[in-house]
């Protein structure tokens, strides 16, 4: 009973803050709404017995990615942002498309059938703790994707540095 109420609370908060995030004119407000959304998403992960992922959700999403968004928002011009129309001219087409998509996705859910059960029942995960279970799976079965993920992060770090670097050569040529 308690978990159902908790789920419904999280669901209402996620939908509400999600809608607010894409409708607020001020981008800083939108980012803060998404921050609340990520915290409730971590709460939902807790109801699914995925404690490590809940912690990663808060540390990486709320702690790192959203702070990056906030810093970039401070670097671009917000004052101009508040004056121009924030929605595209044909906003209703986008709204109709996404409402139709939501209806299609929700309407096909009853036809979904669960497949074969895997080898990680809740009791086994609880006995081993979730972090250890995830680590065991990641460092044995998924070791190659794990290495590739590390490489992707390295490429992202280098790419972010190169893209955001001030281009000094053209400035000295122009000036």
């Amino acid at each position, binding site marked *: 009973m308690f978990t159902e109420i908790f789920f419904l609370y999280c669901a209402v908060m996620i939908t509400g803050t999600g809608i607010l995030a894409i409708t607020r004119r001020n981008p800083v407000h939108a980012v803060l709404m998404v921050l609340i959304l990520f915290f409730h998403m971590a709460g939902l992960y807790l109801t699914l017995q995925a404690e490590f992922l809940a912690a990663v959700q808060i540390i990486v999403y709320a702690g790192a990615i959203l702070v990056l968004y906030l810093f970039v928002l401070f670097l671009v011009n917000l004052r101009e942002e508040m004056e121009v129309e924030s929605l595209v001219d044909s906003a209703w087409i986008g709204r109709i498309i996404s409402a139709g998509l939501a209806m299609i*996705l929700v309407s096909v859910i009853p036809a979904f059938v669960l497949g074969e059960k895997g080898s990680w029942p809740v009791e086994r995960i609880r006995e081993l703790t979730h972090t250890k279970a995830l680590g065991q799976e990641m460092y044995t079965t998924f070791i190659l994707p794990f290495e590739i993920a590390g490489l992707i992060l390295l490429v992202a770090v280098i790419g972010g540095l190169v893209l955001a670097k001030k281009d000094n050569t053209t400035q000295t040529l122009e000036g």
Partner: protein
Amino acid sequence: MIPLSWYMALAAILFAIGVCGFLTRRNIIIMFLSIELMLNAVNLNLVALSHYLQSMNGQVFTFFIITVAASEAAIGLGIAISLFRSRHTVHVDEINELKG
């Protein structure tokens, strides 16, 4: 015990919210934020299914999706900064030329 369909319905709705934000907003940073919402919807679906299928694969995949989302944010926001430096705008409507 919460039924699996509740999680899937919530993920579908969150995904649709992300699609709506991506299609209707003009600010490129809010558009990236909408992509994050969509990725989060997929994450929720994967974690819920992995719990109900008693498998760990979905959660490992979620971990990789978080990695990809982090790198996407870093590179996308880097592009947004360099775009703002050269055009002084982050609106996608005004960025309609390849070279100019």
